[in-house]
């Protein structure tokens, strides 16, 4: 009887823990090991010490990928600002407002592949964007949006932002609806105008949501792959202009069969995400204590 009692919690945990151990914990350990080996998935790994990391330091494409991933982080502040404004707009009690919220949510659920293809068709040289710009007389010749290295990252980032708008808007909306109405009334009595009201009450009130979104969306930005792949294909844009960390990992591991080298890229990615998450949470928590 005692033994059975003792075992019960572990029995509940077993199915989930087996899956997580095999598909998350083991791979993390394995990828650390692989990063010190020469390994091509089909052949067994061979220990090479720090060679992969030495090679990484001297690899210009890796540094380019690192830079691109950091540039990609710009989607986070843009999303936060846009989505707070959007949430304030859809927080008005207007008839039919639910329909608008639902419409804004459609890109969130449609999936990055379908949405990415829509964008590809729009940004195509023979696509809608060029037709509109030409007919408005803004440009005189069609622009090759997807073949121009300077536009590669901005277009992908715009897509990420566009897909995230509805989701983060709803997160902020839920936050706004938790802010007590009396605070706004008090602000009105104190003579705040509409903008001051939101700046002094809504924004500080949304701190937990901002923390959450900073962490989640910057992780997503640093792990971006689908948008790049579907817009620019397996080459990742002209002259590697769209190659990010995860894209480079994918190319090395699954295109070029350099799984050992890709594992070294993965380790760098892991260190960055860890440092980033810890830094973010610390910084934002300290801020909320001060507030």
């Amino acid at each position, binding site marked *: 009887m005692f033994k059975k009692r003792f075992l019960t919690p572990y029995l509940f945990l077993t199915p989930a823990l087996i899956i997580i151990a095999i*598909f998350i914990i083991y791979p993390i350990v394995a990828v650390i090991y692989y990063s010190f080996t020469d390994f091509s998935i089909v052949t067994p790994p061979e220990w090479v010490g720090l060679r992969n990391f030495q090679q990484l330091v001297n690899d210009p494409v890796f540094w380019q990928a690192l830079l691109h991933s950091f540039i990609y982080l710009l989607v986070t502040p843009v999303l936060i600002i846009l989505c707070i404004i959007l949430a304030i707009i859809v927080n008005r009690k207007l008839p039919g407002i639910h329909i608008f919220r639902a419409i804004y949510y*459609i890109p969130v659920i449609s999936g990055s592949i*379908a949405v990415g293809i829509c964008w590809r*068709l729009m940004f195509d040289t023979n696509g809608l964007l060029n037709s509109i710009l030409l*007919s408005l007389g803004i440009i005189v010749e069609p622009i090759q949006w997807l073949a121009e290295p300077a536009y590669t990252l901005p277009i992908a980032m715009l897509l990420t932002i566009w897909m995230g708008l509805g989701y983060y808007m709803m997160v902020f909306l*839920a936050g706004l609806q938790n802010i007590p109405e009396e605070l706004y009334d008090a602000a009105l009595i104190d003579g705040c105008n509409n903008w001051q009201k939101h700046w002094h009450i809504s924004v500080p009130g949304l701190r937990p*949501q901002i923390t959450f979104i900073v962490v989640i969306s910057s992780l997503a930005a640093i*792990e971006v792959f689908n948008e790049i792949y579907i817009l620019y294909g397996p080459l990742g844009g002209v002259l590697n202009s769209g190659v990010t960390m995860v894209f480079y990992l994918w190319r090395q591991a699954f295109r070029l069969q350099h799984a050992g080298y890709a594992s070294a890229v993965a380790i760098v990615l892991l260190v960055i995400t860890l440092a980033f998450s810890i830094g973010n949470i610390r910084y934002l928590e300290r801020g909320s204590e001060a507030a």
Partner: protein
Amino acid sequence: MNQIQNANVHNTTALRHTLETILWYVVLCLIALVTVFPFVWVISTSFKGPTDVIYSVPPQLIPQNPTFANYIRVWNQLPMGNFFLNSILVTVSTVVFNVLFTALAAYPFAKMKFPGRDVIFYLLLATFIVPPQLTYIPSFVLAVNVFHYYDTIFALIFPSLATVFNIFLLRQAFRTVPDDLIDAGRIDGASEFRIWWSILLPVVRPALATVAIITFVAQWNDFFWPSLMLHTRTNMTLQVGLANLQGMFTSDSRGVAAGVVMAIIPILIIFVLLQKQFVRGLTGAVKG
């Protein structure tokens, strides 16, 4: 005199109010235009016949000779039926077992004391920040050498049967259930499994729905791992098939557009039917 003045003030504020409301609707419609316009254009393109131009100045939005030909062509040249079936099989089995397994694991974390509880829990939480793509290199080796499920949908199902995030969410939900309820069950001599099944699960049903929806959307739209695993066309899910279609039909925008519309429709229907649960499910995870 006073009354007339009052009425005037009343009228102007009412007018201002109406104008303001109209202005808000204009703003709302403009934003809606930004979020749905790409879809509208793709739907229009998918119905365009060979004589309707896709690229013109000014752009043509409404097809002059609407046709289903693009849909029929895509359906005949690609195993779209297989794509749908595979996606449904993967998503449904993942949702069912994932909810079951994570709900089982969440109970002891929320309501039992046992050696190692906090260590295991924080270890799990720590894996949450690990980028999933990092685990795919070893998982690929496992799929090929150990489990031999490369190029089958099992390769998509097994790794998704439990997720740390869902355990975390359900643990939060279980913690809100009063201990008295559980103690009452124990006094009645119910087994822990029975308590979990007939006392806890019914109480946390909204949280179960949340977890089911999160898993559903994530699995339905997943692309990176499925694209690594699935190579034979008839084994592909909708997302992998769609990416494949884009490669095959590079010069056929009308066909690509038809494929996109077919892929979006199922999830859109589910979204319209379960709108409230969707929004609550996907955003409710962040309660302060």
